């Protein structure tokens, strides 16, 4: 994880397109400028960044389901529960399941566990749009390679 760069996923542990599920892993860094403010003398992983981690896992799953021809953007967050504090150095087990892929959107249920304990959960709506710029697609391809996800070349047909 590099919190200040919004790199929330370290590795894709499992991807099942038939079951529409993904499992991802991430380790919260011991040091980050984020912890200088959240909170001084009591570093905690911000809940909004836990939600972002779930959104990115659901996003990767959505992008993969759409054959890497569209980008997923977080549009709505529902039923968020942050069940316990998460501190630097802990490993996150992030899971997501796509409930529905509609036209231009997807709905996912996502969760994070730490040490096997349910830590947070949310229902996320993602808008899906064709990659708005080649640069974003290239960035996503590089990010996919970094986390162990196959990202095919764009189709030209």
């Amino acid at each position, binding site marked *: 994880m590099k919190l200040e760069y919004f790199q929330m996923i370290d590795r894709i542990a499992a991807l099942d397109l038939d079951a529409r599920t993904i499992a991802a892993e991430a380790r919260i860094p011991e040091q980050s400028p984020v912890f200088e403010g959240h909170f001084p003398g009591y570093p905690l992983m911000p809940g909004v960044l836990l939600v972002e981690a779930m959104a990115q896992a659901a996003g990767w799953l959505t992008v993969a389901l759409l054959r890497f021809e569209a980008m997923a953007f977080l*549009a*709505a967050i529902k039923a968020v529960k942050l069940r316990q504090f998460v501190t630097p150095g802990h490993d996150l087990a992030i899971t997501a399941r796509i409930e*529905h892929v*509609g*036209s231009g*959107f997807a*709905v996912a249920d996502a969760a994070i566990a730490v040490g096997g304990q349910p830590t947070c959960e949310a229902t996320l*709506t993602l808008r899906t749009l064709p990659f708005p710029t080649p640069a974003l697609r290239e960035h996503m391809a590089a990010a996919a390679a970094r986390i162990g996800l196959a990202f095919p070349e764009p189709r030209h047909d």
Partner: protein
Amino acid sequence: MSSTYDQVAKIIAETCDIPLDSIKPESHAIDDLGIDSLDFLDIAFAIDKTFGIKLPLEKWTQEVNEGKATTDQYFVLGNLSARIDELVAAKQA
């Protein structure tokens, strides 16, 4: 069994917290009921799940943007219900 329109009106009332009696077949989801694109995603999700279809929102948006269709054709609730019936029939064919 309630009509497609009745089910759509109920979905909109519950999803957007709009009184059911203020929703009419001639109501335009955007212009009359003030439903924005994000709220309409929730409605589309509920319609997709209820009717087992996939509302082609991207295709409809493209047609409207290209001037090939009006928003009335897709977002006046009576018309939306007719489009849903067409999609259900096409799926069953």
